[in-house]
């Protein structure tokens, strides 16, 4: 049993905004009061008390990330090293941290839950093995379905009901938590050397299936299955100048169904080409503000080295042609693809300067913090361990001005950031790093400090340097255990894996089996991830 006393508590989900009050913990949960002997008290005077951070969109495990790790030894050489100690396993940080180091680095920000946002069913087993080795955080993952050719074939034939059961079967087979759509139709088209840039045009190889149809049907299926997290959507035309039209059209096509718009920064550009690229964050935020069915994460970029990793194969090929750097491309059988290209965002580069501004503009212009969350699409826009830099930029308009002053002059007429005065409050930060994403993920036990919530609690010094503050939590509690104490990791606990079991017609397996055995290279019985592979599974029934 434990009592945190004297700290200013920020628990926006329960309307607590900086009130000094006690937080009591027993058996890994928040309770109203603790009594008796053996109660440990943490004096949190001068500190703020936050619910543990929740990352709604990150890439920390699985085939694509491992491919990126192998491709970028240069990033490991210069990375922060974790040497072996009685508490810690050895590892490296950097742009693609190793599994154990990923857990340490998230804990080092006060984060306790992460959502791995792109898992092909074919590499789900590998992903879970890596997630098992990622300590200190609870994990969930989204399963890539929008380019699954068996599912698209069903949409072509108009069999949406069967497609829904197929989708649910795959989600459970992968032991996933949510459904992800990446460049719907575009990754399938990439296998023909094409992309899907127009939402209303049939996808290569199909006559009736269009990106719009995939988006609207899948969002409807996710809603009908009553999954806790809406469809997690990476729109078509990521990164392309002028893609604002596609993004807004996508939001319209959803027709009121729920969706989480991933890394919106990469989808908010105007202009016709790289020379005329400009920010369209005002237009996007205005439209988004009127769509209560949607949530989004920022996908902000920061200047420096990164590795771009995505299932969006055609975009990665374009990025490789633009940069001339290394390029990795994977074909994941009938399900999806994957591309990896190392990238360096430069403050002197006009396009990068606009991207930097757009990420912050979206966070500042979307008026409801409950619907826009802090992410960098790690490791695409920047590494997750750089989140405190973004918090500083959001909370301090003076600091933001200093950074804007360093941008190339030509960039200033293409962005809106210089005219934005808004500063985030601590309560709003608590929303965008914890309470909001927990709500979007449909995790009622996360992101707040109400009675019955998981005792994931971060204590930060109330430091005017917000970057230092959020980069060095004084204490972190994970499931009631004190894992970070006085800034050091003191105790290792394994996180749980959050898994969703949707309801579906089991006969779908008999439909799928012959198709699978005809088109896949592996045996059908080896495809689903067995439950005993998932350590610390927390299964959520739905439907």
């Amino acid at each position: 049993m434990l009592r945190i006393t004297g700290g200013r508590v920020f628990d926006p989900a329960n309307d607590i905004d900086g009130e000094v009050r006690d937080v009591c913990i027993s058996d890994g949960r928040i309770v109203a009061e603790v009594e008796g002997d053996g109660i440990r008290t943490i004096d949190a005077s001068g500190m703020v008390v936050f619910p543990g951070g929740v990352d709604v969109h990150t890439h920390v495990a699985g085939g694509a990330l491992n491919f990126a790790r192998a491709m970028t030894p240069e990033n490991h050489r210069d990375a922060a090293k974790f040497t072996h100690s009685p508490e810690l396993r050895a590892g490296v940080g950097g742009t693609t941290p190793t599994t154990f180091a990923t857990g340490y680095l998230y804990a080092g920000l006060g984060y306790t839950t992460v959502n791995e946002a792109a898992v092909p069913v074919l590499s789900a087993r590998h992903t879970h093995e890596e997630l098992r080795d990622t300590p200190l955080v609870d994990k969930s993952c989204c399963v890539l379905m929008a380019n699954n050719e068996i599912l698209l074939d069903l949409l072509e034939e108009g069999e949406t009901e069967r497609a829904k059961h197929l989708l649910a079967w795959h989600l459970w087979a992968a032991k996933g938590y949510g459904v992800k759509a990446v460049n719907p139709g575009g990754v399938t088209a990439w296998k023909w050397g094409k992309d899907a840039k127009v939402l209303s045009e049939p996808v290569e190889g199909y006559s009736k299936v269009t990106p719009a149809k995939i988006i609207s049907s899948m969002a409807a299926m996710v809603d009908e299955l009553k999954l806790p997290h809406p469809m997690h959507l990476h729109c078509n035309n990521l990164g392309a100048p002028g893609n604002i039209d596609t993004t807004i059209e996508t939001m319209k096509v959803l027709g009121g169904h729920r969706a989480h718009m991933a890394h919106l920064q990469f989808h908010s550009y105007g202009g016709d080409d790289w020379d005329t690229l400009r920010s369209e964050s005002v237009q996007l935020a205005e439209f988004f503000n009127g769509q209560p069915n949607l949530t989004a994460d920022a996908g902000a970029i920061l200047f420096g080295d990164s590795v771009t990793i995505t299932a969006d194969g055609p975009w990665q090929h374009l990025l490789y042609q633009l940069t001339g750097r290394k390029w990795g491309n994977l074909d994941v059988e009938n399900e999806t693809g994957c591309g990896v290209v190392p990238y360096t965002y430069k403050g002197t580069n006009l396009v990068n300067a606009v991207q930097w501004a757009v990420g912050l503009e979206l966070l500042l212009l979307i008026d409801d913090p409950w619907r826009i969350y802090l992410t960098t699409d790690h490791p695409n826009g920047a590494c997750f361990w750089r989140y405190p830099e973004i918090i500083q930029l959001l909370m301090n308009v003076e600091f933001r001005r200093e950074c804007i002053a360093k941008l190339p002059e030509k960039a200033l007429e293409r962005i809106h950031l210089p005219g934005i005065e808004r500063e985030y409050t601590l309560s709003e930060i608590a929303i965008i790093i914890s309470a909001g994403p927990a709500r979007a993920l449909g995790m009622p036990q996360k992101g707040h400090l109400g009675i019955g919530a998981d005792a994931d609690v971060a204590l930060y010094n109330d430091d005017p340097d917000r970057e230092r503050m959020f980069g060095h939590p004084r204490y972190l509690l994970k499931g009631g255990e004190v894992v970070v104490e006085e800034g050091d990791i003191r105790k290792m606990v394994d996180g749980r894996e959050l898994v969703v079991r949707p309801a579906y017609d089991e006969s779908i397996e008999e439909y799928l089996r012959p198709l699978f055995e005809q088109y896949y290279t592996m045996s059908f019985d080896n495809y689903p991830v067995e439950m005993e592979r998932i350590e610390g599974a927390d299964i959520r029934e739905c439907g």
Partner: protein
Amino acid sequence: MITLTLKEQPGVPIEAEALSPDVVAELGHDEICALPIFLGKRQLRLDEFFEVEGEASEELEIRGDAGRIKWLGRGMTRGHLNIDGNAGMHLGAFMKGGTIEVSGNVSDWIGAEMSGGYIHIGGNAGGQIGAAYRGSLTGMTDGTIVVEGSAGLEVGMRMKRGTIVVKGMAKDFTGLEMKGGTIILGGAELRTGAWMNRGTIISLAPIPLLPTFAYNCSYNPIFLRIYARELAALGVSVPFEESEGTYELYSGDAAVSRKGELLIWKPAG
């Protein structure tokens, strides 16, 4: 001067990043004796493997066969490191200034990603001289490396600036993905200049050419007169007089930019 004499050959290579003039310049005798070195995964004191003489000097001399000692002079910025014998891998890697003199042979990756300074090797060298480490975009960005003997694979891989001289033969893939700078060779084996984007490779003997290098002209580049004078001070003799012969210029690699140049010396007569 500080003198370190190797007492015995280690069973496995020693990693001795501490052995650079920058580290020892301000240290007393006892502090030098206590410097950490790594034998495999074990951390040991320097004096477990070396007799240490002298203190607080930018002149560091290592005596004995240091062929199994890695990272000598890593990242050094000043002073002089003299090795009376052989040296191991990564000698002078990330070096920024100062000089390294080795009387014997050295292993791979010497001067890798260096940005300044001078390395002179009396014997033969291994591969990846002045190269980029695996995955890095650029190898050496300045400085000079002179090898009296032969060299191994991938000499100057991805180098961007600076000079590498190999008086003997270099093995395959010299100047691989080169981005700039100059490599002077006494001859080379296969695929010299493969994927080179820019930069100059000068061979004083005929070499096999890749089909993606096209003959341009025969001439005596003016810059060589000036360059040869600089190099003469380092004991490197590069011919440039028309009476002695001409250079054949080949441009490539056409598989990438075609902006690199390969100059092959043809003696008169």
